[in-house]
């Protein structure tokens, strides 16, 4: 099987409309989260990162759309347009489209939506993105809770290895909606402060909003400076509980072991872990246990939720793209919000942004339904 790479990429976030603006702000440890008072979404003020509506509209209009699109579609179109343009790829039969989302256009269920309920069907979202860019294959929509974003990258690799495609554009996005916030609020999982993953004084999650896109390709002539090769990946269920993570970190531990085995690397070969770190008590504790079982307690680790909040179906993809840039810049980004370790097993949390030669990173995610995904990426050697 040929190598499969991650290449051209884009992040649309509260920081701006390209990956560079996100990386620049993370380098300077600038939080993207702010206190938002929007009673249409939640009765109480909440911390979130949201894409500025007026600027999004401007970027979207530059694409000269010929029909009306929802807010999420605009985010995804703006992100993917940039990635396709940079790549210079011609869309043909050998180019696939994978969309990662947990809830898609769920806001059309709200009273007073400008769009019919039909748009809440994820295949309808897929069709809008497909037709806008003239993809010849139907979109493959992956909706697998909070692991969707990183799982989508591994699904792209698997389809390429099965010779279905040579290139796959993977995009991820979810909205900050009343639907989502009321649900996490019902779980009493929302923090009323900026989130602090793995910290002793953590108080829960923030939900944020991004759209991210990346080209996954087997073509070694279509690479960028920050390109990485996917060495191994796995997705294992906890088989324990649908809303609570396993107390033994079973599924995450197994995912990491399986990814290491496929990658043919040892735990000590991992230079950096881009973890899930939602800042809920149970999630962060579970991850600490799983990483210790895999012998990764001394590996520098961060959660990027302190910058963006939890961006749901986009998060795994967003954080993978930032990991690519972290390797390329030989920089370990600080795990924003962290003060003092608050999990029962040791972890090496990156407290300040540090320069270090790094070549291999592990990305993990975990979510409702007991799902977990681990993927290992490495710099492209000449």
């Amino acid at each position: 099987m040929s190598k499969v790479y991650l290449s051209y990429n884009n992040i649309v976030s509260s920081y701006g409309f390209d990956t560079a603006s996100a990386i620049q702000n993370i380098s300077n440890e600038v939080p993207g989260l702010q206190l938002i008072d929007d009673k249409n979404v939640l009765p109480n003020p909440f911390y979130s990162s949201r894409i500025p509506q007026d600027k999004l509209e401007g970027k979207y209009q530059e694409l000269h759309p010929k029909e009306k699109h929802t807010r999420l579609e605009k985010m995804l179109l703006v992100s993917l347009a940039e990635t396709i343009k940079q790549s210079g790829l011609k869309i043909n039969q050998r180019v696939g489209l994978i969309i990662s989302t947990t809830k898609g256009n769920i806001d059309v269920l709200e009273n007073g939506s400008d769009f019919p309920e039909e748009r809440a069907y994820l295949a309808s979202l897929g069709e809008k993105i497909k037709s806008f860019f003239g993809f010849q294959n139907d979109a493959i929509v992956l909706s697998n809770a909070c692991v969707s974003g990183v799982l989508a990258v591994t699904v792209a690799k698997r389809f390429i290895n099965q010779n279905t495609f040579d290139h796959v554009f993977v995009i991820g996005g979810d909205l900050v909606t009343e639907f989502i916030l009321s649900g996490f609020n019902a779980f009493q999982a929302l923090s009323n402060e900026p989130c602090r993953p793995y910290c002793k004084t953590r108080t829960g999650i923030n939900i944020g909003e991004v759209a991210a896109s990346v080209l996954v390709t087997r073509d070694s002539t279509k690479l960028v400076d920050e390109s990485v090769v996917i060495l191994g990946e796995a997705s294992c269920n906890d088989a324990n509980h649908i809303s609570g993570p396993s107390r033994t970190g079973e599924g995450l531990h197994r995912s990491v072991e399986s990814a290491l085995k496929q990658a043919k690397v040892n735990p000590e070969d991992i230079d950096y872990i881009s973890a899930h770190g939602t800042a809920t008590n149970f999630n962060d504790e579970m991850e600490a246990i799983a990483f210790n079982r895999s012998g990764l307690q001394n590996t520098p680790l961060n959660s990027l939720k302190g910058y963006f909040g939890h961006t749901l179906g986009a998060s795994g993809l967003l954080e993978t793209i930032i990991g690519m840039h972290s390797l390329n810049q030989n920089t370990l980004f600080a795990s924003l919000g962290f003060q003092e370790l608050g999990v029962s097993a040791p972890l090496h949390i990156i407290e300040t942004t540090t320069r270090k030669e790094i070549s291999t990173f592990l990305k993990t995610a975990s979510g409702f339904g007991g799902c977990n995904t681990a993927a290992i990426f490495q710099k492209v050697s000449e």
Partner: protein
Amino acid sequence: MKNDYHIQSYCHIRNNDISLNGNSLYKDDADSFSEFIKAVYKHLKIDYSKFFKMDSLSKLAFIAADTLLVEETEKNIGLVLSNKAASLDTDRKHQESIKDYPSPAVFVYTLPNICLGEISIKHQLYSENSFFVFDSFNAEALHTYANSLLDEEKSEKVLCGWVNFDDGKYDAFLYVVAKKGTFVHSIAEINRLY
């Protein structure tokens, strides 16, 4: 690519009828899905109290999977399910509840992959999980992804299929892909059995 896999068994649940390998196991003329699926649960003598807490999509997927896995000894079974409506049936209930009191017990089912979790818990499967959404039954994608999991030795067997629940209407077709079995694992055969 090895690609010489087989379909070991398959199950349908549609039109008030549950069948295994084309043979009806139970049918009735219940007026609603909830009555029908409860009758199936009793008929199959499944003793699993968590079943009653599940949403309709999970009940549908759970019963179809249980029918195929009840005598299965292999535990490394990847789960690759798909549908059209994702979790929209429960999404509508959660959206409706927001103005009153949203319930965590409903909200957790507003993700289609929760049914994969339910199957994993019952059968103690620490295996690969993916939930895809398509406009209609997509044998090509399921075929490719199952081959990938088997070729790359991520799974020994794969439970694949379609499980859709939307506004009271339901349709489930699940099948187990293995190294041995009665039917060839091909797109044409998957479509024929569907």
